[in-house]
């Protein structure tokens, strides 16, 4: 029983990381209608840049702040030069351009990091584990989860109470109408990308410091996409719920299914769940029902 509880708990905590990644994707989709396949690559690059600055600068907190600023700028550049020229083009263009963007970032990452790019952060966050009863919780994942919750609250507040958030919601509803209401759609797009890339940088540094900086981090982008689909493309709350759900599913798959089939199910089960969700509930758990259907 303890085993099952601890599997659930560690699944929830791992899922928090996925939620964190998914949140950035939802944010961009909500306002611009673009799915960012490059979120994982951005996160990976952020982990590397963060590492480089933490090593160079005397205070790690200054370094982290600087990384966030740099990634805000990267977000602006990505939007301005890759996505904005494609407004009005078919969906395929935006999908392929973000895929290409992730290659570009991968290239930069490999050039910047040398072979494989594995780097270990000096300890930033509390490591070790917290014992609650018989269950050991990973401190770093706990911190990640807490930050995911904080970001979730911040984004919800942003969308609900700030003028900027209101503009974003209006733009998400209809580009032309909001343009005619005096909202600058372009600047909303930029803002959204900046915020989303800062979120990517936060998750990159968190995950990078918990494990290590490597090309493998890019794979978290796929997890983020799955979370987004399962939770509902335009729902931040869906993201927060779906992440832990997938985390738990992975935990169970890793322990119960993997030994039976010879492994690898842990990585594949989320995709199977995603397929099922897409067939039976295409708008996700919390998404708006107004989805493109045939």
């Amino acid at each position, binding site marked *: 029983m303890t085993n099952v509880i601890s599997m659930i708990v560690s699944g929830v905590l791992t899922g928090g990381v996925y939620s964190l990644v998914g949140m950035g994707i939802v944010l961009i989709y909500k306002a611009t209608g673009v799915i960012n396949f490059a979120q994982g690559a951005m996160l990976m690059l952020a982990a590397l840049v963060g590492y480089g600055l933490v090593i160079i600068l005397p205070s790690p907190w200054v370094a982290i702040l600087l990384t966030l600023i740099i990634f805000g700028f990267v977000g602006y550049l990505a939007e301005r030069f890759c996505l904005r020229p494609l407004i009005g083009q078919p969906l395929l263009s935006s999908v392929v351009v973000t895929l290409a963007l992730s290659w570009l970032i991968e290239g930069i990452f490999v050039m910047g990091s040398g072979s494989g790019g*594995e780097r270990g952060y000096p300890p930033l966050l509390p490591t070790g584990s917290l014992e609650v009863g018989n269950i050991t919780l990973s401190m770093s994942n706990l911190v990640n989860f807490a930050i995911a919750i904080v970001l979730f609250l911040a984004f919800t507040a942003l969308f609900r109470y700030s003028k900027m958030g209101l503009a974003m919601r209006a733009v998400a509803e209809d580009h032309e109408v909001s343009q005619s209401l005096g909202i600058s759609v372009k600047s909303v797009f930029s803002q959204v990308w900046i915020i989303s890339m800062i979120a990517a940088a936060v998750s990159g540094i968190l995950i990078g410091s918990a494990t*290590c900086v490597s090309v493998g981090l890019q794979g978290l982008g796929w997890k983020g996409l799955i979370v987004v689909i399962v939770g509902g493309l335009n729902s931040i709350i869906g993201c927060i719920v779906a992440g832990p759900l997938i985390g738990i599913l992975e935990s169970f798959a890793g322990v119960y299914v993997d030994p039976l089939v010879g*492994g690898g199910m842990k990585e594949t089960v989320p995709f199977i769940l995603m397929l099922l969700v897409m067939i039976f509930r295409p708008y996700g758990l919390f998404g708006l029902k107004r989805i493109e259907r045939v």
Partner: protein
Amino acid sequence: MRSKIKVGLMTAVVALLAISLVAISCAPSGVATPTAPGEVSIGTILVGINNDCTGPTAANQLLVFQAMTGVIEKVNAKGGIVYNDPNTGKEERVRIAYEWGDDKNDTARGAAIYKRIISHDPLLYFSNTSASTIALAEWFNRDKVVGFCMGCPLIARYPVKRYVFPSMQSRTDECATTIKWCVQDWQSKGHPGMPTFAFFTMGGAFGESSIEPGVEAYAKSLGVKIAGKWIFDPRATDLSTEFQAMVGAGVNYTYGNFVPPQFALVCKEQRRLGLEDAIKVITDSNAMWAKLWELAPEASQGKLGNVERPDVTEVSIPEVKRYVELLKNLELPVDGIGMFTAGHTEIAIDAMKKALETKGYPISADDLVEALERGPLLQAWGPHPKVYATPEDHMLSRECAMAKVSGAKYVIISDWMEMVDTRPTK
């Protein structure tokens, strides 16, 4: 502006096409450091190298490449292979040129690199990537090129071919030896019965390489229990469920084949969960220790999981010392995999020299195969003590290469243990 960019883009496309065509038709063959003045070489031997400096296993491969080319350049710095030519009766020099490609662990790219290099007629081809090597093995035989399949244990599963030399211990044998060692370790500590095993490897292309049918059969013959095989996501951040499942299954030893980031995580997680005493984590000798300590900085202050910092420089075996010096001179990290690669490159060059001394320049692939098959070339080196290459068995190092680290010392299992042979009997 836009139309100008369009014209520029198209010009770039046409230019790229033109450059590609030129590059394909007249690509230079091989890179060799210039000859030192006063020393005249009578020819060059071309060596092809394919490894994945980018891609999923890149962590190991850069070092492999540097060690390999480092050894080649060291020979060239002396003017090449110096030998007594049987035809002229004089001392002659033959230089070594190499041509390399990075296949990103992608078979199609590996094939393209091979085809390019093969059109320049190399004598020897080092293939270092797991994915391409199996495909290349077929082609080495077809094209009559001596192929050194390094770092690729899978090749050992295939029948011996004349031109193919798997220059690595078989993972199967290694794994079986580990089981044997662990059983002895278990019994020496006074535990009754047999220990329980789990195999714990990273996912993706390495997912299954730790436990082979041969290993399973061997383990069963010893009476060891195999609790299961855990393959974890290379992107995992938390391994507590896997570890807890292992504890639940009563696992005592776990053996894994990892690249450094994953292994660092396994060690961190084992330590975090306080399982240092419950489960022993054992890895193969090729794990890049230096990289590992870099990834898990707390290790340098002391214990990291079950594994302690090995100091190769403290090992007293003379050949180990020699390779430590060699790698230090090349300004490379002193590591199992570097020593291993440098060693096999030296074997190849030694064999070339032998072949040159019997046949004279130029030598054919068959001459090189004969030279390689003429018995042990290097008596002992690195953590891999003995080297054989016989016509019946082209494995270049069969003796056990398992290294268990204990008390800041390298303990080489093969110092006191024969490697288990799990190959199917002929």
